[in-house]
């Protein structure tokens, strides 16, 4: 079962929930945690994994053989990202815009395009106290996260529980992270910005057709609008974590909720059971 954890607004508590869920479940089942926030991975700060393995993360960019190229321009036309310009004497490739889709090399009638690998970061993995841990990190200056997120997700185990910590936002990197998961947990906070971005995230998840539920973090006041929204949309609020300085203090020292306050492990187990129930129910519905 693959559970992704997204939010819309940044800083709502995705990593707190992801790491706490992993810690709470690890003794009962095989748990794997993937940190797909490749621009700023942070789960390792809390789980302190032994990252003994690594591989380079690359994106395939086109290299055009000018001898074979007849300037027909098919590659530039098919490129959705304007990464190839056909100029009078030669084609010009803008590798910084290339998303590595492979369309240009596939379609070139002269077979003039080969794909070369461009390094954009690295993927590391190892053990974190009984949790299988994987994360990816983009090199500074690189703008494109989806290729490295795809590479991190190649490490997903076929069995057990897979928890994926997504980047903030609702665009390409998050879609790449969330797609293919059985359930998406949306972490929100009771503020106008939190609600605004939650609505965007819900739209994204619905677009992917993934079942979802909400975790309300820093609850305690001002959550009426969020709860109203969830009720109107038919989205269950599966867990509520209060605004508590003690939690924040612990977190700022690199100690996640389920570790510093172990009584919360029960709440996260209940959360997991609710998710399983919802996923099973959905499977039953589609079978009918």
């Amino acid at each position, binding site marked *: 079962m693959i559970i992704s954890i997204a939010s819309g607004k940044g800083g709502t508590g995705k990593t707190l929930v992801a790491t706490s869920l992993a810690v709470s479940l690890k003794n009962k089942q095989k748990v794997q945690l993937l940190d797909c926030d490749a621009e700023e991975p942070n789960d390792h700060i809390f789980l302190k994994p032994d990252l003994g393995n690594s591989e380079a993360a690359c994106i395939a960019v086109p290299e055009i053989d000018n001898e074979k190229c007849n300037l027909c321009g098919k590659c530039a036309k098919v490129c959705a990202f304007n990464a190839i310009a056909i*100029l009078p004497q030669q084609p010009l490739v803008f590798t910084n815009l290339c998303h590595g889709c492979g369309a240009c090399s596939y379609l070139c009638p002269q077979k003039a395009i080969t794909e070369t690998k461009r390094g954009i970061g690295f993927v590391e993995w190892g053990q974190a106290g009984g949790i299988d841990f994987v994360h990816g990190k983009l090199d500074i200056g690189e703008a494109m996260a989806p290729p490295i997120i795809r590479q991190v997700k190649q490490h997903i185990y076929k069995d057990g529980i897979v928890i994926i910590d997504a980047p903030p936002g609702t665009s390409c990197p998050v879609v790449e992270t969330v797609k293919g998961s059985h359930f998406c947990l949306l972490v929100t906070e009771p503020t106008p910005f939190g609600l605004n971005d939650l609505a965007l995230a819900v739209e994204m998840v619905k677009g992917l057709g993934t079942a979802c539920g909400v975790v309300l973090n820093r609850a305690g006041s001002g959550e009426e609008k969020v709860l109203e929204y969830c009720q109107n949309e038919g989205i269950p609020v599966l867990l509520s974590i209060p605004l508590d300085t003690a939690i924040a203090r612990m977190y700022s020292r690199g100690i996640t909720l389920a570790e510093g306050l172990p009584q919360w492990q029960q709440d996260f187990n209940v959360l997991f059971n609710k998710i399983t129930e919802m996923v099973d129910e959905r499977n039953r519905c589609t079978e009918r």
Partner: protein
Amino acid sequence: MKIAITASSPKLEAEVDPRFGRCQYFIIIDPETMQFESLENAGPSASEGAGVSTAQMINGEGVDAVLTGNCGPNAYQALSAAGIKVITGVSGKITDAVENYKAGKFQPADQPNVNAHSGMN
């Protein structure tokens, strides 16, 4: 030789559009005869690579130089590779810009004058 000027609307009386990649229109004009035509730019709706696609479009117009406010790194690279002079820092009325060009008051830029994505709002 024809030149291309970024324009906020498709008329000679218009103001110079300060952006290259995402400008609204181009005025393609022969400064000697003042014969001109206007071109709508698809750049504003491009999700990315607007500088590259706009440069490629301009390359097909057979102009000697581009006059604009700002030109980013990808556009500059594409235009330069095509042998088109890039003149940045141009503003105000298009007709004034043409006069200044004819009077030789402009120097071609030797590098882009803004970073990538400066024209996005």
